[in-house]
């Protein structure tokens, strides 16, 4: 099916406005840059510099005009055209559809995962629409200990809420296709039971009212394929995480509203906290395996953008609906965890380059691919821009290795013009922050719940300073990831760190040594060239030189909590937590799951774990252990060897009910004698 628009008539005007203004700003900015650099004629390094500037400035301009659109949308109020919302009468009716809420997990902390499921489940139950929902925890866990702990946590959750028959647990033995494959497996087994599927992440939490509203919107809008509820980052205590939570709460709505305002029914899907029309997803969103080798070939890593594009290609709309609310996730606790997540996303987004020109896609879907690529490529472009600037300055003699006294007095450089262009760039870069701040200040209630107007302003200023210092570090991280991906590094798919543990100085020093060295080299190099140039690069140099202490200190929960007590970076979800958030927190604390030290040992010694594991094994016929691993595990386990089982051997034993029963019997007999 060919791409065609289902968005309302105003879509063209909205897009022309945002994209046109972004394009016009880019042309003006580039022209001004060229004027500044061409005082002594145009050289090759300057042309490269101008080209890099136009790309970087274009990216900033698009973000700026999107934020302006979001600001106007939020200030004007009202809903976006295109989606039919329920009337009061429709809102009170029972849901006629069936929805599955699925949470794919991979070696996560089961206490947090199942606490979130419980809070979401109870929140749905409180709406009176529980009959319309089923819940699935779809495990791709590879660690045997995580597997056994998940089984116990699932059974315990079902016992607490009476959820057997409504909260399901399934573990895959092979992780083909990773998260996308996990979802595909769900769709191919149980998808046909449900009209809609809500996809969650391992740290997702959703208010029951939001889930009901999303299901109702899907019922009322039969050509809608996906509705994305933008998740708000909440629930962490480290300074780094609280900075992200604050930024997401103050500036995020402006950006999300802006994107929704011009993308309308061709919006994007972020992979979780979204509802999907299951039949359309099954029929039209089976992911292809891309030809060629990694990084561009193979299984699609970042499946969400591609699924949105395929859904749109099939004639179903994809909506970003910020006003839904009640959609939460957790940010990474520190800079390194953030970078680790970015490394994974980077390869996934770069892989989308090969899909930009694919046949039949809607132009906005192509735009999403390019925007995803740009969100990572912008960093190396910025880095190259800085380097090209230095080269051009040297090449054209704006600066030189000569002693300052020996340099020409009047180099003819338009410093005022350069400062003006830099100010405009910085203004556009910071505008989303100040637009978000303006909205929060205007809404007195919001401001009060964020510590009051004075502390809110102070928080924005402090956050801006810290974000500016952290940005060069992320620039180097992302540049490394982009170049690494292009050079063919493999991305390993591990679960991300989700707990608020302090970051050791040694670890930070190891990870940021290169960043610090680059900072030193940049400072020394620019000072040697021209002391005045150091001032231009001060934010970059300072961020890099401070990368180690910044990384360690922002990873501290103590500092985050101190800031909270001081009323800094507060978000309304901290001062007045929604019921679903506080419930998840309470459940996590009340029902902490004891860690499983050794999965096989636990299943053999704990009657509950043993009985449950065998019952679950029996319900999944056809699972087979790897014969070689099972044979060697049996030799060790039943032969009385003291040699510990390897992870594959543990998995093999856990898949074989006969061996487990035999080993338990042997162990009990040994204990008895």
């Amino acid at each position, binding site marked *: 099916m060919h791409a065609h628009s289902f968005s309302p008539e105003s879509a063209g005007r909205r897009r022309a406005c945002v994209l046109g203004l972004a394009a016009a700003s880019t042309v003006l900015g580039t022209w001004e840059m060229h004027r500044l650099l061409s005082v002594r004629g145009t050289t090759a390094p300057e042309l490269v510099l101008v080209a890099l500037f136009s790309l970087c400035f274009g990216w900033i301009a698009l973000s700026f005009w999107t934020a302006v659109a979001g600001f106007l949308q939020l200030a004007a109020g009202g809903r976006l055209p295109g989606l039919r919302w329920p009337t009061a009468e429709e809102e009170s009716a029972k849901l006629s559809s069936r929805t599955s809420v699925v949470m794919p997990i991979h070696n996560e902390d089961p206490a947090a995962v199942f606490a979130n499921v419980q809070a979401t489940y109870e929140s749905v139950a409180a709406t009176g629409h529980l009959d319309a929902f089923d819940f699935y925890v779809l495990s791709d866990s590879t660690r045997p200990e995580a597997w056994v702990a998940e089984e116990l946590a699932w059974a315990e959750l079902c*016992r607490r809420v009476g959820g057997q*028959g409504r909260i*399901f647990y399934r573990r895959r033995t092979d992780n083909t296709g990773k998260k996308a494959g996990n979802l595909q497996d769900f769709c*191919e087994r*149980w998808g046909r039971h449900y009209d809609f599927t809500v996809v969650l992440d391992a740290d997702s939490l959703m208010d029951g009212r939001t889930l009901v509203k999303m299901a109702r919107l899907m019922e009322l809008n039969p050509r809608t394929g996906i509705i994305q509820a933008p998740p708000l980052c909440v629930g962490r205590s480290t300074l780094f995480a609280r900075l992200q939570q604050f930024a997401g709460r103050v500036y995020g709505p402006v950006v999300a509203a802006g994107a929704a305002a011009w993308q309308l029914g061709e919006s994007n899907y972020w992979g979780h906290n979204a509802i999907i029309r299951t039949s359309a997803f099954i029929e039209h969103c089976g992911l292809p*395996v891309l030809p060629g080798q990694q990084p561009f070939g193979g299984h699609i890593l970042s499946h969400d953008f591609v699924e949105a594009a395929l859904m749109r290609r099939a004639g179903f709309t994809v909506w970003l609906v910020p006003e839904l609310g009640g959609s939460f996730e957790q940010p990474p606790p520190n800079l390194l965890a953030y970078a680790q997540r970015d490394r994974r996303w980077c390869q996934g987004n770069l892989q989308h380059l090969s899909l930009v020109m694919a046949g039949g896609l809607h132009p906005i879907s192509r735009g999403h691919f390019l925007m995803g690529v740009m969100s990572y490529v912008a960093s190396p472009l910025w880095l190259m821009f800085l380097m090209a600037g230095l080269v051009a300055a040297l090449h054209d003699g704006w600066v030189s290795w000569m002693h300052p006294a020996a340099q020409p007095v009047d180099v003819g450089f338009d410093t005022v013009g350069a400062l003006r262009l830099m100010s405009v760039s910085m203004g556009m870069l910071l505008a989303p922050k100040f637009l978000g701040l303006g909205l929060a200040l205007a809404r007195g209630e919001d401001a009060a719940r964020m510590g009051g107007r004075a502390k809110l302003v102070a928080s924005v200023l402090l956050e801006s300073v810290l974000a500016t210092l952290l940005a060069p570090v992320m620039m180097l991280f992302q540049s490394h990831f982009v170049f690494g991906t292009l050079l063919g590094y493999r991305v390993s798919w591990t679960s991300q760190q989700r707990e608020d543990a302090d970051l050791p100085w040694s670890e930070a020093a190891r990870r940021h040594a290169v960043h610090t060295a680059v900072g030193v080299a940049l400072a020394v190099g620019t000072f040697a060239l021209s002391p005045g140039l150091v001032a231009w690069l001060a934010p970059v140099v300072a961020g890099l030189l401070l990368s180690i202490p910044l990384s360690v200190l922002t990873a501290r929960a103590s500092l985050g909590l101190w800031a909270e007590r001081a009323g800094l970076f507060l978000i309304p979800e901290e001062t007045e937590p929604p019921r679903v958030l506080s419930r998840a927190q309470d459940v996590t604390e009340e029902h902490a799951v004891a860690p499983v030290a050794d999965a096989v040992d636990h299943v053999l010694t704990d009657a509950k774990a043993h*009985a449950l594991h*065998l019952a679950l094994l029996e319900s999944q016929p056809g699972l087979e252990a790897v014969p070689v691993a099972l044979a060697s595990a049996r030799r060790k386990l039943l032969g009385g060897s003291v040699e510990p089982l390897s992870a594959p051997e543990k998995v093999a034993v856990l898949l074989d009910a006969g061996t487990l029963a035999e080993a338990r019997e042997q162990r*009990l007999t040994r204990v008895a004698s």
Partner: protein
Amino acid sequence: MQTSRPSTLESVWVRPETRAALDTFFQGFGFTSDEDLAALAFWVLAGACEQGERPQAAVALARARMETWLAGVLGREAGGSVLARGRAAFVLCDGARLGAGLLMRGSVPDNFARKLRAAVPVPAPAQVPTTMPEQQLVLWPFGDLLRRWFGAARADVSTSP
């Protein structure tokens, strides 16, 4: 549970190896006290014929007894997965806390029966198998067009071989 010499349970004489096998079986339900295990062995073997005294046959009898008991309480047919799931439910409800008498009484307290039924693990509903067809994406339609003009064999289609 150690049974170092043949034990006599009222009128039933049990070989040590048979008793040990039965103990292991019922320990899987969470029973640990000697009294409970002895009572359960008696419950299984009472009225059993000679073969019942051999460990394997005794365990088979115990399985059948428990299947019947669980099927009765859970309201399901005996056999299939009743034993595995029922045992899991029994352990999750900590049924052993109520003692061996629970199994031997004619009726089970309603409250416990409800708890047991609610605890039967249902890891997933019945499957409705379907296939998610792999979508085809022509990654470079212009290149594909050129290839066709020049008669190249294979299009640049992003789908698994």
